[in-house]
């Protein structure tokens, strides 16, 4: 008899605690759901904030990095003397390896017509080191810029590059507009 009463008292306490824990859970969920979003968010680089520090190549959890160079052809001048393709001290405007700025030769230079050349990024080779971006931004139109490739990006809970980016250029963007391609994305028009 006494044992039974003891048990029912314990059950009562347990039930009460369970209900209060459930209410706490509900409250946490309620507070959090005030800022709830139905939209999916992904990480992306703002090319106008990017300072081409080179950390994208080394800080990503993926090897090679999910950050790739993207070529906005609309902005390209199709120059023969390309600041993104050739080393500044290159002795010849050619496809010779010693003249190329890209450490993995991921930029393909193709002759179009006199005196224009097309530059296409081979994304399988690109490591996102931003060397070409720096060259193109300093000496050219800035048509080469870094973007996170969503085929490779794992969409980590916290982007390990964003944590280390010195210019806070990486932020979450809506998955419906997952890229900030220069040209359609401008400095003043954020989105």
């Amino acid at each position: 008899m006494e044992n039974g009463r003891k048990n029912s008292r314990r059950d009562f306490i347990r039930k009460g605690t369970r209900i209060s824990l459930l209410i706490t859970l509900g409250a946490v969920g309620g507070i959090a759901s005030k800022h709830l979003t139905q939209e999916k968010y992904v990480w992306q680089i703002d090319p106008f904030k990017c300072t081409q520090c080179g950390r994208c190549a080394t800080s990503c959890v993926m090897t090679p990095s999910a950050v790739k160079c993207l070529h906005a052809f609309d902005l390209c001048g199709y120059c023969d003397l390309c600041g993104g393709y050739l080393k500044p001290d290159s002795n010849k405007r050619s496809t010779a390896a010693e003249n190329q700025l890209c450490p993995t030769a991921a930029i393909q230079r193709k002759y179009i017509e006199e005196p224009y050349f097309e530059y296409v990024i081979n994304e399988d080779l690109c490591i996102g080191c931003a060397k070409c971006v720096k060259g193109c931004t300093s000496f050219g139109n800035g048509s080469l810029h870094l973007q996170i490739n969503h085929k490779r990006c794992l969409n980590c809970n916290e982007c390990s590059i964003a944590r280390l980016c010195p210019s806070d250029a990486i932020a979450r963007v809506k998955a419906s507009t997952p890229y900030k391609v220069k040209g359609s994305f401008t400095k003043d028009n954020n989105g």
Partner: protein
Amino acid sequence: MNKWIRISLIFTLLLYSLAGMSQKQRFPKPEFGTGYHQPTPVTPEPRALALEYTDVFVLLIVLSLASWIAIRRRSRKEMLWLSVFTLIYFGFYRDGCICAIGSIQNVALTIFEPGYAISITTLLFFLLPLGFTLYFGRTFCAGACPLGAIQDLLIVKPLSIPEWLRKTLGLLPYLYLTLAVLFAATGTDFIICRYDPFVGIFRMDAAFHMVVLGIAFLLMGMFVARPYCRFLCPYGVILNWMSRFSKWHLAITPAACIQCRLCSDSCPFDAIDFPTGEKEAKKRVWGVNRFLVYLLLIPAWILIGGFAGSKAHTWISKANSKVYLAELLITKPEVRNDEKNLDVQAFLSSGKSMEILVNEAKEIRRKFYLGSWIAGGFMGLVIGMTLLNQVIFRRKEDYQPNKGNCYSCARCISYCPVRN
């Protein structure tokens, strides 16, 4: 007169075109004569939102199955296969992200930083396992957690760990949870994700030190079963609270315990409570005074913890990159000339004034001061409660799973000779 108009027209046109040039490009795009077709840049779409909802659905199914297996089916074999599925789906296929453990940080950030919007998926990943645990025990740990699954499958020869060591190491998850919430709430870092030892194994790709850590944990796990779950997992802390008051829970025996002791060695996690011996029952009288002393000591523990936390806040806040940068620029102004310091150079070229940075850093540090008081006080409370628990006497009649620590892996069930 006509001439002047013409000249001024040309001049305005020239000025206009110059202004236009500066707004556009250094080298305008050429007009091709040879019918050149311009390629479009490759921009693959991210993973569809519908697939994220599928993940939540799979989690719901797996949690339901795990609870059903632990409580109704009572089968270790089925639980094993379920954990294999979890390891493959949430681990290797989903690359271990997002997981319930990491979602703590998203919830903390969204509560303390209104600018951060949490996705429904993440919130459900946080709430669903806790809700299930409140009713069925920690079946999430047994069947639905990829981190638990990978450790569980690699247990070879589990050693029993003495209670004092278990209790002491058991404080680590509380510390980890406190720090993770503190860092997430201040928008500093997501340490749970960053130091997740197994995510590198799921992705087959990680920094060298994380690979070493992951393999070390797995090797250790062969002898110290589930080391991460028991002595680090911050989500386990919350699951433990929930599970203690769960409505139903896995039972070792389907009927009355016959005290045959066959199950006593079956648990690799030392999560089976043994019946109280007669000798211990007699010692009970001694406990009352100690209980009162330990109870009165709890406020002291909270104060000590909070004070220690507040003292450490300057040091802890350096984990925040803004605070670190501001402090570096003030204490070592010569770094401004250091070309190799990317953070300093990026800050200098951004055109942001030092004053704004310092104010931001001060604001973050203020948050850290408050947060460290609370975090320290909480740790003090945890230490006080752990000590208090040592002197609370609970009479146990049978061999029972410890509801807080039991992962509902169902190993013990097959050791029980009682059949209905």
